[in-house]
């Protein structure tokens, strides 16, 4: 393993990340956009969490809120973000600088734009080492070389002297991972790390992240719109919709017994190998909710095939299931409830009659 500092956060017993009622709103000419609206969860060290949701569900804003990377103008933040027992939600830029890189780091969606086009790969990896760990140039470059090896980049010596445009997309994302791990953070946020890459490279990058997580005992937060991406690479999954957490469970449990119709719809919209070719893809009808004027009741109600009057009137709280306290969901008539089956049967019969006619 490369020489990384032991961040201070590793000495406490508190969970690595503890979010209580985190909300991030933006002031816009249209009104207050409630991009993230009351999200709470905890993440233990060394674990990985997948945050899943469609575009505009607030998953990216949530991860940037935790990192404190949002613009200050027009942003209203509330709630508490505790990192290893220490409140970081209200820290200013100066104080956050000691957290960034050393404690928490981030990988971005597009490796084409997240590297400085005019700096050598080696310099880009060495820079955080020199700033945060006060290494001299020789040591920093040696460490950079080690990091490139860790992220399985062949010929690290040559790569160190190259510029980003000389590398492929997958290679650049590996470099990004190397940069973000340079100072040994305990939490790594990966914001759609594989969306811009093709499928074979995707799997490699995800495997690399998982491997590095185990090796370095990091926590990884994987933000994605693709349930397939998180399926094999996370311990827990949190599903977001309209700025809220709507379901959270361990990965195994979520896929075995999902409660939220939204999660079900999200899973159904992934094409399956077993389907006959030219099978129409399942879509979630309607549009993502308006975050300026949220509707009363459940935010998914307008698009939910199982919605009842109660869903449109009252907002379901996030509750735990009876048999698994770690599995929570926000739905009045979850998947598996009698009402759910009733609606499902009714929907099935109407489609059948339509087809018969």
């Amino acid at each position, binding site marked *: 393993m490369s020489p990384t500092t032991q961040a201070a956060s590793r000495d406490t017993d508190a969970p690595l990340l503890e979010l209580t009622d985190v909300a991030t709103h933006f002031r816009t000419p249209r009104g207050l956009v409630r991009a993230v609206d009351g999200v709470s969860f905890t993440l233990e060290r060394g674990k990985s969490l997948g945050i899943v949701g469609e575009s505009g569900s607030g998953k990216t804003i949530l991860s940037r809120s935790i990192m404190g990377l949002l613009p200050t103008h027009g942003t209203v933040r509330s709630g508490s973000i505790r990192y290893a027992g220490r409140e970081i939600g209200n820290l200013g830029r100066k104080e956050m*600088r000691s957290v960034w890189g050393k404690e928490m780091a981030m990988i971005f*969606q597009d490796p084409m734009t997240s590297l*400085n086009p005019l700096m050598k790969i080696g310099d880009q990896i060495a820079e*955080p080492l020199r*700033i945060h760990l006060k290494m001299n140039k020789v040591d920093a470059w040696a460490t950079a070389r080690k990091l490139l090896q860790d992220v399985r980049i062949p010929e690290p010596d040559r790569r160190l002297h190259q510029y980003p445009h000389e590398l492929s997309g997958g290679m650049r994302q590996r470099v990004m991972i190397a940069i973000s791990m340079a100072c040994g953070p305990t939490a790594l946020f990966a914001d759609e790390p594989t969306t811009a890459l093709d499928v074979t490279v995707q799997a490699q990058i995800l495997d690399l992240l998982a491997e590095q997580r185990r090796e370095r005992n990091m926590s990884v937060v994987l933000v994605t719109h693709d349930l397939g991406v998180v399926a094999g690479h996370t311990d827990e999954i949190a599903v977001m919709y309209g700025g809220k957490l709507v379901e959270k469970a361990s990965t195994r449990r979520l896929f075995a017994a999902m409660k939220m119709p939204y999660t079900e719809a999200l899973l159904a919209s992934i094409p399956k190998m077993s389907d006959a070719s030219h099978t129409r893809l399942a879509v979630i009808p309607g549009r993502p909710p308006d975050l300026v004027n949220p509707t009363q009741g459940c935010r998914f109600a307008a698009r939910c095939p199982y919605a009842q009057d109660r869903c449109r009137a009252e907002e379901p709280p996030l509750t735990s299931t009876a048999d698994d306290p770690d599995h929570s969901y926000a739905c009045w008539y979850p998947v598996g409830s009698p009402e759910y089956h009733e609606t499902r049967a009714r929907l099935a019969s109407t489609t059948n009659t339509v087809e018969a006619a």
Partner: protein
Amino acid sequence: MSDTTSTGPRRTLRQRLHLPRLGVLFGTVWLGGLTILTLLANHVPAAVPFIRYYDTKVKVNGKVKKYGFGPGLDAWFGTGKSAEDIFARCIYGAKLTLLIGIGATIIGLVVGAVIGVLSGYFRGWTDRIAGITTDSLMSIPPLLLSLVLVLRLDDLKEQYSWMGWISRPWQLSLTLGLVSVAPFARIVRAQTMVLREREFVTAARSLGASRSRIIMRELMPNLVPAMVTVAFTGLGILIAAEAGLAFLGMGVEQPHTWGKMIDIARDDIEKAWWATAFPCLMLFLTVLSFNLLGDELARRFDIREAAV
């Protein structure tokens, strides 16, 4: 590199031979040649025997004659009011003309870039104050502003001994530099605002880079192409502006810049058109060259032309 690989539209002869565009070729040759000639003429006159000395009078049958020769073999661009060789004067004058333009561009670009980067990066109040400053600068007609400034600097020079170094060329550079601050600042600000939203800047922030580091290491190097491009276009404009000021009597006494030459000879344009026309032509071709090169750079670096 071969014709066999290109399956797209037919390539022109120029593309096949990998020649630069005509405009680029012309601009480079013109500016390069002019620079070499003027430096040689000013500093190593022996190397360019075909150029007369600055003060050499071209005599007609042994007598000094006003506008003695038209353009021809005796004096390529003709002779001037006091029988001086216009061609030689054009070459000697190029040095100062270019130097004033370059000086003004550097001053304008450095000040403009600092203002532009800071206001584009920090936005908010910094941007507002910088915006008000540059807008007020732009709202004054540049010609008027520079006329007043040159005269004011004249006075200041008389008044304070420590400002004695501000000779006329310096006055012109400072003045034109100040006039060009606002347009330069605008372009740099716009580019900065584009760059600061790019992911690699956020990535640098997420690794704990300080503001100064982000500005110096992430933003500045990426701004260089834009700045070089506007510098070229700006140079052309500023050289023309210097000529304009010289034409209005704010020129340098010795050696004459092109603008000053035009100013001196313009009254006699009916008698001796060449004494005005050739400096004008030099000016025209030089400004054109800078513009052509600026356009090419903008194409290469993919920078949209903002108002300069």
